[in-house]
């Protein structure tokens, strides 16, 4: 069957199936199992209402359980077994093997660098852009242009930036902006992506470029939510614009800054496409997610690959717990 036809069919079956399930399950519940009539009408209605939430939740819970909760457990198990020995339990051998590989430590080191630089730079630029654009008339246009890279895929962004970093031998016209500027300033053309450790930062620039817009949009909304009286009071007290920004505004939006920071941190932990597309981990630019992909789908070493995935999970865990605690607090 042609894939496009299959897609249309899937939409019809998927949507139809969902509607059918929800409607049908409700009908069965109300008409057959606990009919709202007869001697036990009151009891039946209240029982139906106790069951109904679970009817509504069932498909989502099933999918969440199967596609997100189960894999966490399964990956943990895989990381403790060896595929070559028919899935025998090997304890922490995979982790030990991984710890012995220099490539893993390179990935860890680079990931830590990414974790510090990218959220900090994105949030910083985002805050700057939010504050500046809020004060001018064409601010909205400026915002949507800075925000635009959010819509571009990591791979597309990599192609865009690869052109910026492009290298031509000396004597030819440079077609990459970076080299063109470098040569104009009197330097020799460089193959930027092979120069360790700076190539790591050049890859980070791509993600910063994408994430700044996100930070800007959220922080700009937070800035607008600051009560005007606090700013006015500061002005009356003779604060200059920088004092207003750093002493009055930033402290008030601190919770939002933290949220933005953690959200970008999560993106960074999973960054994979940019490294794969630009250097594929060569020249000491490996990161955890790409290391994991290498192990799983190129070396087909599922044990070590799963161990690497668990490392990512462990790094995510503090944020996960923090988010859950916050959500619980809110529910009360």
């Amino acid at each position, binding site marked *: 069957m042609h894939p496009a036809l299959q897609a249309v069919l899937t939409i019809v079956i*998927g949507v139809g199936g969902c509607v059918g399930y929800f409607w049908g399950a409700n009908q069965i519940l109300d008409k057959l199992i606990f009919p709202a009539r007869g001697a036990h009408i009151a009891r039946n209605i209240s029982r139906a209402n106790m069951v109904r939430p679970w009817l509504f939740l069932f498909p989502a819970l099933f999918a969440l359980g199967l596609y997100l909760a189960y*894999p966490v457990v399964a*990956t943990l198990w895989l990381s403790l077994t060896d595929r070559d020995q028919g899935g025998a339990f090997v304890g922490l051998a995979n982790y030990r093997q991984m710890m012995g590989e220099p490539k893993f430590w390179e990935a860890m080191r680079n990931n830590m660098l990414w974790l510090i630089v990218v959220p900090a730079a994105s949030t910083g630029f985002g805050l700057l852009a939010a504050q500046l654009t809020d004060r001018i008339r064409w601010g909205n246009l400026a915002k949507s242009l800075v925000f635009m890279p*959010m819509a571009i895929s990591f791979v*597309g962004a990599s192609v865009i930036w690869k*052109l910026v970093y492009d290298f031509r031998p000396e004597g030819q016209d440079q077609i990459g902006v970076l080299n063109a500027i470098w040569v104009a300033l009197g330097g020799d053309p460089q193959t930027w992506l092979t120069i360790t450790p700076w190539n790591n930062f050049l890859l980070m620039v791509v993600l910063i470029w994408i994430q*700044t817009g996100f930070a800007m949009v959220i922080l700009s909304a937070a800035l607008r939510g600051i009560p005007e009286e606090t700013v*006015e009071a500061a002005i009356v007290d003779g604060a200059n614009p920088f004092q207003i920004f750093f002493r009055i505004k930033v402290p008030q939006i601190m919770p939002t800054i933290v949220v933005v920071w953690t*959200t970008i941190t999560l993106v960074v932990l999973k960054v994979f496409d940019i490294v794969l597309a630009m250097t594929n981990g060569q020249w000491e630019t490996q990161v955890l997610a790409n290391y994991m992909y290498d192990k799983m789908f190129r070396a087909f070493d599922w044990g070590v690959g799963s161990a690497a995935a*668990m490392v990512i999970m462990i790094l995510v865990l503090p944020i996960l717990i923090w988010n859950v605690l916050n959500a619980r607090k809110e529910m009360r």
Partner: protein
Amino acid sequence: MDNIAGTKSTLTWAVHLSVALLVALWLFPTVGLLVSSFRTGEQISNSGWWSSFSAQERQAPAIRVAGAERQEGALYVIEGELYPDTGAAVSAWGTSSRAPEAYGPGDVAELKDGWALSVDAAGRYRLTAPQSFEGERLPRIFSTATAPPEFTLDNYRSVLFGTTAGTGVGQAFLNTLTVAIPATVIPILVAAFAAYALAWMEFPGRALLVAAVVGLLVVPLQLALIPLLQLHNDIGIGKGYLGVWLAHTGFGLPLAIYLLRNYMVGLPRDIIECARVDGATDFQVFVKIVLPLSFPALASFAIFQFLWTWNDLLVALVFLGTDDDTLVLTARLVNLLGSRGGQWEILATSAFVSIAVPLLVFFAMQKYLVRGLLAGSVK
């Protein structure tokens, strides 16, 4: 408001300038790719895209004199044009690679055996000799010419409809669409019912479930790859579109439920309770009141999910495989980066084809995207 302090004029200028600089910096790389996609491969590799808007002086590749000879009195003559269809103007030319700029336009170069060659400013050349050129090796012309800015749609034609092996971007475009649309539509309905239950129905364990959804929101999907691939193989789905759709649905659900629940909780309690008092069942309340009112949140999520599935590489690589006829755009681009890393006209154009749809969605639906972002992360 900040301006009351009296520092208005200088600071305002500084603000305008810095915003302009920021925007220019952010736009520059993308514009570079866009402009490059309209240039020929030769143009791209010979000069930076920023110089494509001005007339370019550059050395053209050597062209060997060719054409039929005719007799003009005692002389044999061959005439022709160096750049037949362009408005290029020759500024210098030569007959050997060692001195490619030896002559100016209109000069006559004396060659061996009484041959004479002249090239005028428009690129017309004229080679004369006292005897026939029959069997002779004709000279080459090296020229430096100033060409006016020139853009072409050929790249798009060849990338989208071309049949060169390994560049099937048109096919990849359809594949991506095939992945993205069902993967966007299916989670919405499933999530909407769950979100309603979590927002407006009372049952034990509700708070726990909300917390669980928040937790699952950040689980890296890297963990899901191998177990789910095994699962798909075990139940007979294997690698294919169905697997990708299911995977995207599963991975998109936490965000969908979270966004929709947050929005639904904020709906006015009065409306829903009035409907219940009037005898509406939960199912009716959901379908007739909550779902229509939640349209903005549904739109936000739909945009997120569409952008995410369109731009995704990892899930498609793992669950759809790397066969040539099922590659999605992002995977195709990665392949092109490897195999045709130097052919910027193909790369730039393919990249822009893949970027165009998300950008269109982005600019058309920005309002909903921003709203969704705010609902999703500001607490």
